[in-house]
């Protein structure tokens, strides 16, 4: 096979791995309430798992200074004063994995006060590992061809 054709083949395969629609598992959406404690510089729990379509209510309780919680990709946020509970409700309509992070300067390590919300499965991770696998095969085959 000509190297150009091979390259084209692998690029196409890469596009499929990256963008092909996956069958959606239909789970009935639920209402979920999650209590999160915030302290310098961590949330607990810091890893959340919900299903796509769920209505998520986060109750943020700060145990030391004022903290916030901003969800990447959803662009929603709340702030909680020490000892008070702040409530944020949103519909988890985008699947994937999102960082949530403090958006109120709360001390030195503030920029790294981070948690992780996974909605459904983190498909992009698996797609990325798929792409890496494909990349390796492509490279090895092209090396073999040259040899």
């Amino acid at each position, binding site marked *: 096979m000509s190297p150009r054709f091979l390259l084209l083949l692998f690029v196409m395969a890469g596009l499929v791995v990256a963008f092909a629609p996956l069958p959606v598992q239909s789970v009935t959406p639920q209402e979920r309430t999650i209590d999160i404690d915030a302290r310098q510089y961590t949330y607990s729990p810091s890893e959340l798992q919900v299903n796509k379509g769920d209505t998520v209510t986060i109750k943020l309780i700060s145990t030391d200074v004022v903290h916030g919680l901003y969800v990447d990709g959803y662009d929603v946020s709340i702030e909680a004063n020490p000892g008070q509970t702040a409530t944020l409700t949103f519909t988890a309509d985008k699947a994937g994995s999102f960082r949530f992070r403090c958006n109120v300067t709360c001390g030195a390590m503030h920029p790294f006060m981070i948690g992780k919300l996974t909605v459904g499965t983190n498909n992009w991770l698996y797609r990325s590992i798929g792409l890496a696998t494909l990349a*390796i095969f492509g*490279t090895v085959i092209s*090396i073999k061809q040259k040899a």
Partner: protein
Amino acid sequence: MAKIELNRNPFIENALKSRYPQLAVFIVMLVGYIFAILAGLIGTPVGSHNFSIVFVWIAWWAVLILVAVPFFGRGWCAVCPIPLPGEWLQRGAMLAPPNKRPKWLNLRVPKMFRNIWLQNISFLLLALFSSVLLTTPNITSIVLAAMLFAAIGLSTIFERRAFCRYLCPVGGFIGLYSQTAPIELRIRDKQACVKCEGKPCYNGSEVGYGCPWDVFPGGLTKNTYCGLCMECIRTCPHDNIAVNLRPFSADLAKPTTRMDEAFKSFIMLGSAMIYAGVLLGPWGMLKDAAYNVGSNSWFVYAGVFLAIIFGVLPGLFSLGIYQRQNNIAFKQRFASLSTALIPLGMMFWVAFSLSFVLTNASYILTALSDPLGLGWNLFSTANTAWQPMLTSILAPAQTLALVGGLIWSARTAQKAANESWTSSMPVIVYCFLLTSVMLWLLL
């Protein structure tokens, strides 16, 4: 792909030959550097609102790792302010060489230090304290000032730029990754150098200084130790120095044979992964351990950090490339094959930095108007709300960087493996495994 000599263009040639454009940039950089030191000391202790943290660790870092190193190699070193005060003092001049030589010790650096182990160590020292360094203005100031003074001190004791060559924690990895850049400084014609009397590019002349980086331009085969200071363009009487545009990673076709350089690859690869996990991951315990310097958990963190870099990563690598029957000594194969980790390591840093920089870039606007966090509003951007940038393309961009780095490394592995008559497969598999871990950490 052929090389293009950029300084064939008379405008570029003159801009590089003249000392004034570079001096102008130097002065701006030095003023910024000193301002960063002062801001860290007198400004707000809140890192994300202090010029020192925001401009060093967000703005400068972003430019360095996302643009300067990948595209210009040691381009940053060409304008870096850190060695300047020492160099000016050592020379007794800011521009062209004066008639009388100042009397400093001008010693040669002892042979045992003429490698990058000290740079490996200085980088690791900073890396172990990085959570504090990255977030605490006065610590950043102290480190910046310490580098300035160390460079001055070394300039008075040793000849040339000893700090840059052997101690600078930043210079070590810039040198390593500069090999991947599409820019190089090389001679045009070998014969001209052979015939050249006095070798003014190395020994200096009345028009300029001998290579400050202790490199003989005539022998350059890779970017690692040429600081792109442009001095040899000024001194070479035969117009024999070219600044070339060339294919990416051209230097990696000649794998390294040195252990200090090999370990630099592991140090950088490992640190990028550890940072991705500790700083950007959701694990509060790790952050606590990394931040509370001196506590028991920090010692455990430091131990694990070093174990990963000096044990786990090179250990797995060695297992992969170990062979009974191969005439080429194991050490040599280890060093040579580690060259393959250079593109991957750089892309790990790109992927890590993209997340950190895009999330925090809005602080640059705030700090620009209120550099000390004292409530100023110089350019009416002080109240810009914090807002992550380009969140929707972050994950695809990271995947692209990491998978691209993986392909790049696999191809480099193939070349290095050919040189040492061995298979590239173990190295490729190793790179794939590390990439998968990094994807998992970041996505």
